[in-house]
């Protein structure tokens, strides 16, 4: 019973980590950079959707769509102002710049939205249903489906379509890609927009299970990055799989050893896992042809 409860809870949590971590995969695949403000992007999606749907009473699909579009715009801004200027000068300062943008956004939301956590109502998170004697909200079942569908879509997009192949070519050799007529800066900007939209989707899906507040993304962002690295940041399937593994192991550790040890054991396990598999679960070692 304890173990079943842990596995069911872990699957739900894990797919949320995976969903957020896919955002890291996307930008890394195209530009070898990541947006460390993914946690804030997730929070932004939830807060904007809350403002449109709950505060202003918009038609929910319209409110959610608008929130996601704004998340995309935010991703474009992150890339344009916190990543591109540094990458152009061969500097790694984008690492700090994206962290700083996240802190900035968290604080702006704190001042405008307020610190008080608010509930995001959803018909899918009202009454728990029982699966193998463990209660879950229907929304917890929707999240893995959305996560796996997005991972599948990304896989197909990057491996089977011309546009996807063009995106991957950018990371291999930007100059050659440019010579082949690929819009390199457009591709990188698009990858940031897609990654923040994914984070926004994660935020909107998680909000009804959790609550909406300005620091809801902080811990999630850190765990999602751990998941992205663990999965091998170059594989969409790997990232999603690592999310599920992380979620389940986390819940099992809590159930078996107690919550006092959860964070210690989890992050120690990540170090061990990466020492054994430096490229993550499904990642491939980068081959640089010169």
């Amino acid at each position, binding site marked *: *019973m304890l173990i079943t409860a842990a596995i069911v809870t872990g699957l739900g949590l894990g797919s949320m980590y995976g969903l957020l971590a896919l955002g890291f995969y996307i930008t890394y695949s195209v530009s070898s950079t990541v947006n460390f403000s993914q946690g804030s992007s997730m929070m932004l999606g939830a807060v904007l959707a809350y403002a449109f749907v709950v505060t202003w009473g918009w038609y929910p699909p319209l409110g959610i769509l608008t929130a996601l579009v704004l998340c995309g715009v935010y991703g474009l801004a992150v890339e344009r102002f916190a990543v591109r200027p540094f990458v152009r000068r061969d500097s790694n300062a984008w690492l700090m710049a994206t962290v700083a943008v996240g802190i900035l956004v968290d604080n702006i939301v704190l001042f405008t939205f307020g610190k008080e*956590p608010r509930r995001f109502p959803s018909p899918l998170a009202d009454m728990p249903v029982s699966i193998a004697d463990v209660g879950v909200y229907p929304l917890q079942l929707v999240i893995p489906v959305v996560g796996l569908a997005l991972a599948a879509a990304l896989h197909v997009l990057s491996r089977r379509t011309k546009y996807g192949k063009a995106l991957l070519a950018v990371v291999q050799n930007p100059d050659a890609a440019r010579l082949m007529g690929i819009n390199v800066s457009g591709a990188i900007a698009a990858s940031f927009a897609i990654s923040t939209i994914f984070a926004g989707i994660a935020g909107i899906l998680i909000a009804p299970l959790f609550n909406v507040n300005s620091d809801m993304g902080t811990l999630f962002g850190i765990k999602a990055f751990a998941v992205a690295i663990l999965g091998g940041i170059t594989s969409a399937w790997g990232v999603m799989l690592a999310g599920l593994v992380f979620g389940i192991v986390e819940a099992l550790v*809590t159930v078996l050893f107690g919550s006092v040890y959860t964070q210690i054991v989890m992050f120690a396990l990540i170090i061990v896992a990466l020492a054994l598999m430096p490229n993550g679960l499904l990642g491939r070692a980068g081959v640089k042809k010169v």
Partner: protein
Amino acid sequence: MTLQTSRRALLGAGAAVALLAMAPAAQAQDIKFGLVAALSGQSARAGEAITRGLTVAVEEINAKGGILGGRKIVLLRRDDESNPSKGLIAARELIQREKVAALFGGLDTPVSLAIVPLANSEKVPFMGTWAAGTPITKNGANPNFVFRVSAVDEIVDQAIVKYSVRHYSAKNPGMILVNNPWGESNEQGLKAALTASNMKYAGIEKFEGNELDVVPQLSRLKASGADVLYLVGNVGPSAQVVKSLDKMAWKVPVVSHWGPAGGRFTELAGPSAANVHFVQTYSFFGDLSPKGKQVLDMLMKKYPDYKGPGDITPAVGVANAYDSAQLVALAIQAAGSTDGDKVREGFYKIESYDGLIKKFAKPFTPQNHDAVTADDYVWTQFINDQIIPIKH
């Protein structure tokens, strides 16, 4: 003098006059009370509640002719933004520049702990109105200038154990505590209280401030046979505990510290929020004492947004602050001066005060600087969005 400089001088003088006109009409003989609390940010509502409680008390005292032979009290406020260093700077400014006769503290234990050494070294009485950290008053200083009219963690923990035994016949309680210094302090307090009652516990589980799902922790406590849960956490994470209990369909009594009172608990936790019984020092609901009716009336007259007892939230902030100000005024009156050392002695001379929280009898002694005791707590629950005392 050129025309320009004389114009500038004139403007300067005009501005100075305007500033003087705007400044509160503080007279040299006025007695200053200084409040250092969160007036902005996450705890702004708490700061506002404390301000209102102090204001109403000060106005009542002034209307009756003030203290020390007709001297009026003025209230000065400084925002600590829940930040200990900002609180310390504000407290120093109030003591050294404004020469306040007494300082009042806010909601945050870390801010109060930062001010305690300053109050003791500057010999200025520091009255806690909210923060419950045990070491604020039990700070080891001799002489100790820190007093409090609020809950105290270690006493709350004793009250939680007592309540769970009396109302739920608890034999094997489980603790579910937020993973921060507040949770840590209550873990020690609850363990001590259980030991004192010769009781064992099912287990201790921790959760993060923004934990999404607490089912694994609760499953462990359930498997260890917990018959009551002791909850310590702010409103958001406390709501996650209630939602996780709902998911598990585990109907276990939950006895809690006052975290749920800090926000929209029912909105966040859903209808099961009412199952959580938590501690408060005062409630404006129910049969009020004559003093309670009088203060409620004053509050509603002064603040039009208070239309009834349900609007006075958080009630503990208002009530603690009101009684704090009255007790400080009594201490100054008993001291016959605003000299810090004499006022400290004055606190011990207060024999009785018919207050809002209770009829205080000898509220402070050199050994006890906490005026609120385990028997004074009110047990409450959320019904819709109002904190209502539980009737047994």
